[in-house]
């Protein structure tokens, strides 16, 4: 696991890029630039970026964009994607109506 644990470590300045307005998380409409800026604001883990920007918190729960987000964070930190802990998967794996999840019928 990467020891990106010193949140004051110098990861270099945020430099604007041409593709910063590309939408990465389609459910919550979060752009690449927003994710990159979040890393430079101190959010170094997938859990933090998700909580700060909502990417991966919409209908698909990050099943579409999770890998992309991980790659972007890793790149900003100068790390490999495999060195980052994935965001926690949460039940239910598919959106489920309250009347079905709450049913006790067999």
């Amino acid at each position, binding site marked *: *696991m990467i*020891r990106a*644990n*010193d*949140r*004051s470590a110098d990861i270099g300045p945020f430099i604007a890029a041409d593709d910063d307005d590309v939408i990465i998380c389609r459910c*919550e409409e979060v752009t690449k630039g927003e994710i990159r800026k979040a890393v430079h*604001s*101190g*959010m*170094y*883990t997938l*859990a*933090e970026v998700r*909580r*700060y920007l*909502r990417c991966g*918190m*919409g*209908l698909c*729960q990050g099943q579409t964009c999770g890998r992309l987000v991980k790659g972007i964070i890793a790149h900003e930190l100068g790390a490999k994607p495999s060195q980052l*802990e994935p965001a*926690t998967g*949460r*039940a*239910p794996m598919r*959106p*489920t*109506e*309250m*009347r079905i*999840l*709450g*049913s*006790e019928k067999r």
Partner: protein
Amino acid sequence: MKNTADVIIIGSGIIGCASAYYLAKKGVSVIVLEADDSIGNGGSSRNGGGVRQSGRDPRELPLAMWGISHIWPTLSDELGTDVEYTQKGNLRLGKTEKDLKVLQNLTDHAVACGLDVRMINGKEVREINPYLSDEVTGASWCPTDGHANPLTTTLGYFKKARELGAHFITGEPVLKIKKEKGSARLAVTPDGVFEGDRILAAAGYETRLLTSKLGADVPMRGKKIECLVTEAEPPMFQQMLGTAEADFYGHQTKHGSFIFGGSTGLELFGQPDGGGAPMSTSIGAACTCRGIMKYFPALSNAKIIRTWAGWTDPSADGIPVIGQADGVHGLYIACGFTGHGFGIGPAAAYSIAEMMTGGKAPVDMSPFRCTRFKAKI
């Protein structure tokens, strides 16, 4: 890596992050040590987001009221992060005579403390929130209560404290606090030793493992909570909701999803591993759904997209310990918030920063002393 500062804070929840911010703002150097890989990964990121005064213990009510009048309204601007603070009132719902008695009792105590809260009948409840079922026969209504986003609030404090020079180190579990020349000064981790003139232990239940060895034990335990969130729905209502029976609580967020927490009655018994990472269960969300549907039949078809769990730290008398550890020079404690620490967190942290720098907290903090716990005989 820098390992000395004026203040060492253990824990990066809302208390740790906000205390770091208020201290850094005063020019105090701060190092925050977090055991987890992520900032605020405990209860601060796992609660229902209530910013309430009603329903609180009268001993912590003055601090809650101070925070709601002095911190929350301008917090988004102050931190440069949208904390989604919404002050549209709190309805605490009742369905039975017994419920209404519970609510009346809570209301009487709060009114005695000067809070604007009153009992209303079922018809008045549905005028405020037309989606509530006819089973609701009354409620307590506090118009100055509300809710906020716990995730962006905690991370917003972190971001701002970091900008002001507070040094955060994650994945750095403190194994023990050591005294030097009679004063708590050293925080020992697997990688090294961090030294400060004062130490603030604000690590939820785990605080107990560190401070008890210095003679400052806070009687509390870990209790699990479970929450769920729905997909985004069209705007329905803006109030914070709770019930006398405590079968659920929650609100609709700014982006439209509903966040609800609930209880199964089995929370006291934790989980098989006795602690560790909190896991949501198959019975938790299902039970909460049944509770919600009794009050909100209209939400029966709302889709649940995520569930999660977290640990709370109920103290023996239901309110937190905040302040200097009597008898241990240099050590300050903030824990035992008992599952209602989010709304009161910013005011608690502001007060801690004052107390740690020789200032005066905005309200009387004596109810939160750690020496208040006594044997029954």
